[in-house]
């Protein structure tokens, strides 16, 4: 008999919310199948199962927040039993370590039977305690906002606070694809959030764009009141929405809200992400002795080569400078294995490939760093496509667990509107982070002459337990050399 547990999707993850099941009891699953969507506070991640079999029982309902390692479903070894003995995914080392750590801390907190966390409801709080205990030596248990383990009855999809619909990233993506107004969908997820299944069952609109007919006054009023026009039945000419219709809708919503009190203060998503990031960076700065190096790389000929290359490509196939920077970093890492891997249990473990975690900022705050696997082996065009794909999914939802846990090093690139440079914070248990600032025109001295050239600030923050400044400098030099031969990237 197999078990599917809440995966650890990063050093900063102590608990996760089971957002959505993609399987039902009785379904056959194969190793690598996505069977659930998990919210890590930073992103909604598609979680894979690592053994084959038949889903016997789903133990945790959608919308439940549970500690990492909690058994979410039971699997019965199926006909394809050969797969059941397969080893865990490549991301296993940090994952296992993290799970162990969480379990250990839970014990320290003297919580009985932390292993039997299948009975989840009470344990949601335990994880919070564990998280706090890990973060700092707290003398007293601070007040922790309580998270409802089960969603209450579906409430109105509108979040009064900011006037936006609560919806999972996958739901947003699907709704946008199908041209469905989220405000017209009744959410059944946590806090009445709209989840993917809700959108799937919602009627499609026939046309895009789908602006309802509406009087300007009614439109302004609806906006002020945070009412989705698509959800208002129009009684004006040709079904146009009038001011009276909006007023009626607002009154109806108020009445419904009064009749059905919400389940207490919602856990604010941005705040939750900040907490998750805080836990990771605090651990990093507490445990990892960083050293920092930086240099400047002149890019005139490199960018000229790229412009010529892009002129030959269609819009979709064009390559952004970021892809060049990533590829050069990945190739350089082949010669510097001490920057590419993990520090676990007091020793360095080299990464089993060069998997670049790419820091992607999220609209509305926070960031997530999905990995581009084996980035050193991928041609530029393929690397660019993958970069576009992970950035899109990091923002819209749909990252997979393996993508979140397998990065062997992180690269943060501020893009062409960012600051001049960035000295990163290493993401534990990784041992280095490479930073690229904005490519900007600067005075550049060469062979006794000064000219204006595009220049990028290249930095390295690395773990001094594993490498030192001399090797780090050689690494930066290698990246610069590679960037000067873009045709070989």
């Amino acid at each position, binding site marked *: 008999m197999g078990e599917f547990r809440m995966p650890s999707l990063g050093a900063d993850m102590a608990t996760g919310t089971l957002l959505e099941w993609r399987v039902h009891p009785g379904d056959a699953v194969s190793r690598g199948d996505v069977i659930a969507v998990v919210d890590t506070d930073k992103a909604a991640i598609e979680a894979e199962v690592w053994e084959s079999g038949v889903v016997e029982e789903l133990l945790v309902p959608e919308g439940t927040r549970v500690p990492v390692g909690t058994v979410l479903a039971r699997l019965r070894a199926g006909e394809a039993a050969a797969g059941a003995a397969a080893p865990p995914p490549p991301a296993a080392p940090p994952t296992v370590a993290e799970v162990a750590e969480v379990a250990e801390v839970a014990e320290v907190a003297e919580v009985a039977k932390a292993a039997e966390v299948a009975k989840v409801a009470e344990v949601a709080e335990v994880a919070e305690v564990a998280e706090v205990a890990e973060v700092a030596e707290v003398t007293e248990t601070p007040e922790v906002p309580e998270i409802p383990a089960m969603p209450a009855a579906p409430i109105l999809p509108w979040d009064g606070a900011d006037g936006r619909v609560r919806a999972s990233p996958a739901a947003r993506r699907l709704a946008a694809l199908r041209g469905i107004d989220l405000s017209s969908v009744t959410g059944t997820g946590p806090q009445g959030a709209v989840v993917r299944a809700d959108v799937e069952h919602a009627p499609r609109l026939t046309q*895009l764009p789908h602006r309802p007919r509406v009087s300007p006054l009614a439109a302004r009023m609806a906006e002020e009141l945070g009412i989705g026009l698509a959800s208002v039945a129009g009684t004006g000419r040709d079904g146009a929405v009038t001011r009276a219709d909006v007023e009626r809708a607002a009154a109806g919503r108020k009445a419904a809200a009064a009749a059905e009190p919400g389940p207490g203060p919602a856990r604010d998503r941005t705040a939750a992400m900040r907490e998750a990031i805080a836990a990771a960076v605090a651990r990093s700065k507490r445990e990892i002795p960083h050293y920092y190096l930086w240099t400047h790389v002149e890019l005139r000929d490199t960018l000229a080569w790229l412009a010529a290359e892009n002129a030959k490509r269609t*819009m979709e196939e064009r390559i952004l400078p970021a892809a060049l920077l990533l590829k050069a970093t990945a190739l350089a890492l082949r010669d510097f294995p001490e920057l590419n891997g993990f520090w676990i249990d007091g020793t360095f473990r080299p990464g089993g490939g060069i998997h670049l975690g790419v820091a992607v900022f999220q609209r509305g705050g926070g960031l997530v760093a999905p990995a581009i696997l084996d980035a050193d082996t991928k041609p530029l065009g393929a690397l660019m496509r993958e970069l576009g794909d992970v950035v899109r999914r990091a923002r819209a939802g749909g990252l997979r667990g393996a993508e979140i846990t397998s990065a062997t090093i992180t690269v943060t690139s501020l*893009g062409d509107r960012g600051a001049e440079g960035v000295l990163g914070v290493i993401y534990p248990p990784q041992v280095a982070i490479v930073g690229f600032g904005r490519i900007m025109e600067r005075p550049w001295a060469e062979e006794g002459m000064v000219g204006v050239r595009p220049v990028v600030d290249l930095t390295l923050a690395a773990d001094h337990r594993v490498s030192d400044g001399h090797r780090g400098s050689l690494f930066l030099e290698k990246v610069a050399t590679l960037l000067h031969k873009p045709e070989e990237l």
Partner: protein
Amino acid sequence: MSQMETRAAVLNALRHIAPEVGEDELDPAGNLREQADLDSMDYMNFIVALGKDFGVEIPEADYPRLATLDGCVAYLAERVPQPA
């Protein structure tokens, strides 16, 4: 396609990338990327969407002309054949 329709289509493409940006918050003559907080990847996706919607291939050299909402509308009006 009228100028209003072109403008609506440009805004629609933008909405898919930056859904939180309200039409009335946009200065049509101001820098689109700054106002909508588009990084280079977002901007590239925006251009690709415009190219698809309007059926034109937009060379990279023309990107500076697509820096503002007004610029996009003017550029597309010029590139897209008008009905006789």
